[in-house]
Structure formats: structure tokens, C-alpha cells
């Protein structure tokens, strides 16, 4: 007898047979179609996890006392996830209203069709947290009002995404900007410390696979944070020096000003104030501030002919080589001929019999040219090279230039150059090189490597940078002798550089500016270098005012700037006046 339910059994068994056959067929179909295999594998991968770029926080920059000069803060990238967009117009209007994004551009981005390759579009970068808070509030409001609406055209901010990241911030804005440099949105450091130590501070970016499947979550690899850097710069001194130089520029109508403070005993830079300065939080305004070929930091990147401040090297070489003594007499006739070139004094006058003290005190070009001939070209240039003139100082800042010292044997060196180089003409140096080289006179003949970084903190450990001696161009006795000569010179001249209560040594400089048509007569570079206290030098200050209008003379415009700087310095550095110090030491 035939079972009336047999057809059911047949149906079930057929289904049970067909189903695996279909599965096997599908598997074969997929397996044969390699393109689809790849697509499915990639789709599977994209659903199971994602590659994520982990950018470590950039290392911070501190001043010598631990004040933060460069740190990081959260900023956002605003983007649109194309698949989720419901109303492009609302997104464009909102972005235009809150972020100021161009409406047409935002509308175009939000209206794009999502494809396999186009899923996300960035519409704004570096957006501040406050703006993101506004956008989030608007999203919440819209959700509350239109979230359940069935109207296709209902306002909606669906698809708007925010991705947080860290961006560089400089709490003191312009302060020490020329030393710090800046970091662009791409995370690349430009100029100063940011460029020099970019690799160290940026840390190592890493791309890791992050599984979205919680069962397969693996520990992310340890990403090392960028190294922190502690500078030798003292924030208070830096600010004070910036004020002093800004005031000097205003008072004297100078084109630019530069003021360097260095500790001659260690080579640590305490301040580097120069103009122009940029608010490095708005680094994109670089082009507006640094027009033409203006260097970012004149201290290291602009070489110039320093004029009479250079005489300290000539006199140091002569005293050290024994070519002259402080008592050596020279009769100044007002003119000195060397290599067919006539050299005159700054006032075109003849100063009669002078010893070396007088030559330096009155800054006599004629005398110093003669002194250089007494040293002889071979020894003169040997001394200049041992002072490092014409060479890089090797400071840990980006963009240093070396300047130029012509030496016998160079195609463009002539006998007359010995005479003109003796008083700082025909030779170019950076303010940093001048300060660093002259620091030998304040440090018993030794030049310490100038540096801006004091310590590096990497992997949780602090490494202090050791002070290095880079040369000893003169003997300690010579350094002492010339310091005395220069100190007496200031006192005898009743110089504007003198600081009440503190004995300082120094030298003025006034240099005509070389042009393609010869030297200028009405425009000068006014400089002053000084250090103190003479019995225990703790600072060396180098001042340079470019093309001052009030007076061309370094003694009139640069010397008072030195005094003002030192008056601030001794307070900030807790240096008591000479008599107080001697009294205290005596106790």
C-alpha cells in the first residue's frame, strides 16, 4: 500500500541533497573566479579589522627650569562618511556656518556617491575642540528633532565624522619662536629645534592591524613617545632680551636687531632674541612675516661684516703670539697702507702715539691694521681659524651658516685683506659665531661648544648633554690681559655700556655695509660685545642693530642696549654687584 505522505519524504530528501550541492557549486564558482575571491577576502578583512596608523605624541620642549615651551593639544579632522549621508545640503550649511568651510566645496564632498574606493572625504583639518563641541551639539539637536522623520529631505547631519589627533601648540606664542621653529599639520618640523630634532621628537609612526573581532584582539605594540627636550634657554631671560631688543629697534629705527646671551663657561645659550618673530601657533603666516630672504633666525642664519668688534680677535692674536704687548707703542699718523690700499680711522683723524690700550679704546683701524702686519698673515689667519671664524659653530639648531673668511691662497684674497680683516671688514660671521668665539676671552682662552639643548628625555630617562671644549685659541693669560684692556677702555671712555656696580669688559663695532657697488657710507651695522662680571664671567652678551637710523655708531646705539640687557640679566641671574659679591665671599 502506497504511503500518501511519501512525497514529503521525497521533498525533504531532495532539499537535503540539493542544498549541499548548491553550496559546493557556489564554493566552486567562487574559487574559480579569482577576482571575486580577492574581493571577498578583502571585504572579509575589512570587516574583521583595520590597519591603524599610530602616531606617538611629539616630544615636548621645556626651558631650563621646566617651563613648557612646546606641547601638544587635541585637534580634529572633520570628514564625511559617504554611505551614511542623508542630507548633503544640511552638512554643507552646517560646516559653512560653524567652520567657515566653503559651502559649494562641502556640498560637493557630501554629495559624492559612495563606492568601493570612495567611502570617506576629509572636509576640514586641525579643527579646535570648541568647534567640534558646537558640531556635536547640532548633531544631537537634529537627531532629537528629525531623527524619527520619514521625510527624505528632513535635515540630517548623518555621515559627519570627527577624528581626534594631537597638534603642536606653543603656550608662549612668539616667545623664543626663532629658536623653537614650528611643526606643520603633516607633523614635520621646520627651523630651529623642531627641525634639528624632528626625528627624535616625532617618535616612530607605526601601522598596526587592529582586529574588530573581540576574540582576536591582540595587544598593540608599544609605541615610544617622541623624546622630550630641555633647552638651555631661560624663558624669563629670553623674554626680557626680546623686550630690550624690540625697544632698541623702536628707539633707533633699526631694520632688525639681534641679542645673544651665552654662558662662556659652558657654551649654554641663555637667550637668542632677534627679529622678526612669528606667532608659531599660526605658522602659516610665515610668508607675511619673513618677506624676501629674511632668515628665520638671524643669530645662526645671517652672516654679516661685524666691524670693530672683530678687533678683539686681532688684538688677542697679537698678544698671544707675542707680536705686541699692552705697552707696545704705535704712532698713529691717520693712514696705513697695505697691499696698495689705504686704511683710515673711523674719524679720518691721526691719533698720535698710542699703546695697545689706546688703540682698542679709540678703536683705531690704522693701529689694528698695523698690529695684524706684526702678527703676519700666516699666524693671523691661523689664529682666526682657531677662533672658528669662517666655520660652522655646530650649534644644535637648523639653518646655521658659516660666514666667510678669505685666507691667503684663496683666489679672491689680496694682501690688503689682512689690513681690512684686522678691523672686521671683508670677513663675514654670524652673531652666534662672534659670541661663541669671543667667549674664549671670557673663559680663560677656551671656546665651549655653543648649544641650545641641555637634556633629552627618552624612554623615561634623562640624558644631559655634556659641555664640550671645541678649542683653545689663546692662552689664559692672554684672555685675562685683553679682558683688562677692554674693561679699562670702557671705563676710560665712560662708555654707555658701563653697568653701575658691575665691572664689565666689551667692545663696540660700527661696520659699513658691503653692496655690489662698494661700502655704504650712511648705513651701518652697529654691534657691541661685552661680558661680566670681569672677575667671574657668567654671561656674554652680543648686540647687533642693523641699519640704525638715530646714529650709525655702535657706541651710541648698541652699547646702551648692552647695558640695559645686563641690568636685566644680573637681576634674573641673581648676580650681586661686585662689592656685595666680594663681601659675601669674604664672609
Amino acid at each position, binding site marked *: 500500500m502506497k504511503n500518501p505522505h511519501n512525497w514529503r519524504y521525497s521533498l525533504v530528501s531532495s532539499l537535503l541533497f540539493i542544498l549541499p550541492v548548491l553550496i559546493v557549486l557556489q564554493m566552486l564558482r567562487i574559487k574559480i573566479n579569482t577576482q571575486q575571491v580577492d574581493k571577498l577576502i578583502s571585504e572579509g578583512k575589512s570587516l574583521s579589522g583595520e590597519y591603524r596608523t599610530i602616531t606617538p605624541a611629539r616630544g615636548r620642549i621645556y626651558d631650563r627650569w621646566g617651563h613648557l615651551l612646546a606641547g601638544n593639544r587635541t585637534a580634529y579632522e572633520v570628514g564625511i562618511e559617504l554611505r551614511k549621508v542623508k542630507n548633503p545640503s544640511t552638512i554643507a550649511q552646517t560646516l559653512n556656518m560653524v567652520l567657515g568651510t566653503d559651502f559649494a566645496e562641502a556640498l560637493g564632498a557630501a554629495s559624492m556617491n559612495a563606492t568601493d574606493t570612495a567611502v570617506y572625504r576629509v572636509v576640514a583639518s586641525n579643527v579646535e*575642540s570648541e568647534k567640534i563641541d558646537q558640531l556635536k551639539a547640532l548633531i544631537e539637536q537634529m537627531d532629537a528633532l528629525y531623527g524619527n522623520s520619514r521625510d527624505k529631505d528632513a535635515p540630517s547631519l548623518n555621515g559627519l565624522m570627527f577624528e581626534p589627533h594631537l597638534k603642536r601648540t606653543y603656550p608662549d*606664542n612668539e616667545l623664543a619662536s626663532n629658536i623653537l621653529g614650528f611643526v606643520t599639520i603633516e607633523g614635520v618640523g621646520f627651523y630651529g629645534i623642531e627641525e634639528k630634532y624632528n626625528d627624535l621628537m616625532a617618535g616612530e609612526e607605526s601601522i598596526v592591524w587592529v582586529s574588530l573581532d573581540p576574540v582576536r584582539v591582540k595587544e598593540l605594540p608599544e609605541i615610544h613617545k617622541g623624546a622630550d627636550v*630641555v633647552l638651555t634657554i631661560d624663558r624669563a631671560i629670553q623674554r626680557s632680551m626680546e623686550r630690550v631688543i624690540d625697544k632698541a629697534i623702536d628707539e633707533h629705527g633699526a631694520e632688525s636687531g639681534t641679542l645673544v646671551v651665552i654662558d662662556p663657561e659652558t657654551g649654554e645659550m641663555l637667550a637668542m632674541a632677534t627679529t622678526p618673530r612669528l606667532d608659531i601657533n599660526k605658522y602659516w603666516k610665515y610668508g607675511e612675516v619673513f618677506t624676501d630672504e629674511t632668515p628665520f633666525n638671524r643669530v645662526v642664519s645671517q652672516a654679516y661684516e661685524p666691524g670693530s668688534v672683530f678687533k678683539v680677535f686681532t688684538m688677542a692674536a697679537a698678544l698671544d703670539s707675542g707680536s705686541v704687548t699692552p705697552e707696545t707703542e704705535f704712532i698713529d699718523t691717520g693712514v696705513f697702507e697695505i697691499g696698495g690700499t689705504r686704511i683710515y680711522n673711523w674719524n679720518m683723524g691721526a691719533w698720535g702715539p698710542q699703546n695697545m690700550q689706546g688703540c682698542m679704546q679709540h678703536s683705531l683701524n690704522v693701529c689694528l691694521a698695523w698690529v695684524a702686519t706684526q702678527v703676519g698673515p700666516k699666524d693671523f689667519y691661523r689664529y682666526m681659524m682657531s677662533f672658528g671664524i669662517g666655520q660652522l659653530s655646530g650649534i644644535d639648531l637648523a639653518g646655521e651658516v658659516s660666514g666667510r673668511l678669505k685666507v691667503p691662497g684663496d683666489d679672491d684674497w689680496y694682501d690688503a685683506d689682512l689690513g681690512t680683516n684686522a678691523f672686521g671688514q671683508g670677513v663675514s660671521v654670524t652673531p652666534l659665531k662672534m659670541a661663541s668665539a669671543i667667549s674664549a676671552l671670557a673663559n680663560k682662552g677656551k671656546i665651549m661648544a655653543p648649544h641650545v639643548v641641555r*637634556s633629552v628625555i627618552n624612554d623615561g630617562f*634623562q640624558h644631559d648633554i655634556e659641555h664640550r671644549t671645541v678649542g683653545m685659541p689663546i692662552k689664559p693669560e692672554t684672555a685675562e690681559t685683553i679682558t683688562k684692556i677692554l674693561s679699562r677702555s670702557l671705563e676710560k671712555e665712560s662708555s654707555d655700556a658701563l653697568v653701575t656696580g658691575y665691572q664689565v669688559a666689551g667692545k663696540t663695532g660700527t661696520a659699513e655695509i658691503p653692496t655690489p657697488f662698494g661700502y655704504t657710507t650712511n648705513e651701518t651695522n652697529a654691534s657691541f660685545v661685552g661680558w661680566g662680571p670681569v672677575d667671574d664671567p657668567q654671561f656674554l652678551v652680543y648686540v647687533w642693530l642693523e641699519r640704525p637710523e638715530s646714529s650709525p655708531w655702535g657706541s651710541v646705539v648698541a652699547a646702551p642696549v648692552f647695558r640695559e640687557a645686563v641690568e636685566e640679566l644680573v*637681576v634674573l641671574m641673581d648676580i650681586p654687584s661686585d662689592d656685595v659679591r666680594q663681601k659675601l665671599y669674604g664672609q
Partner: protein
Amino acid sequence: MDRIDNITQVYTQAPWRKQLQFIGLFSLILVFIALVAGIYLNVSAQTAKAGREIQYKKSQIETLDREIEDMQSMLAHLLSDSLMEKRAIGLGYESLEINQAQYLLVPGYIERKAVVLAPFTRENLAEAPVIPDKFTEPLIEWIRKQAGWISFSLPEVVP
């Protein structure tokens, strides 16, 4: 012959008893599989939960790292030189002039030193804590140590 049949019949289990045994065995296997599956599910669920927690903690760490950076920068801004000066002037302070400074010799005064933000190189550190062996050694080794057995290496016993 009948006798033999009788004996076979006596010792042959009834069909219902056989079915019951089969069902019992099947149920036992089923229960065992269910037990294993249950344990597996439980462990998987715990792993997944732990995984989610790790993901959440990682995301929290990232957020906290960013917040720390934000706070540090905010603090630095509040303590920036220009703001501090404004605040000081607001409180009635004035800049010290060179002739206003008075210096005293204070016994025991230690000069201000440059900032130290982290310990110096590793060599200066006390020895870092080491994870006890019991957390890293194989179980067998641990049992052997606990039992007080003397572990020896092969070369020691081979003449």
C-alpha cells in the same frame, strides 16, 4: 534446542531496554557535547568580553593620553610668561630694578638647579624588580621544585 533458545531468550534484553540504553548513551554523548560546547561558549564569551574590555581600555588610554597633553598645554598657557606677568601686575607686584635688589648670605641655601624631569640613565637606577620564577617557569619545573626534587642535567650522570 528449545533449551538453548530458552536460555538465549532469557539472556536477550528486551527491545525496549535496548532502545532505552541507546537513548541513554546518546543522551550521555549529547550531554557531554553540550557540556563541552557550553564550556567552550563560556570561555569564548569571556575571551570576547575581555577582548572588548581591552579595546575599550586602549581607547580610554588614547583619550586619556590626549587629555593629559591638553591639560599640560592648558597649564603651560596659564603659566605662560605673559599671563603670569599680567597676573603679577594685577596683584600689585612690580619688576625688580637692578638697584632694588638686596643680597643676603643664607647658610644652607642651595642654588637653583636646572630641571630634572626624569631619572638619569639606567645605570643610576636601583635594580629593576624581577618577575619571580614561578610566574615564568614550566609547570613541571615548578612541581619538581615544590616536591624538593633535585634537578640534574644529563651530563652530570653520564661518566
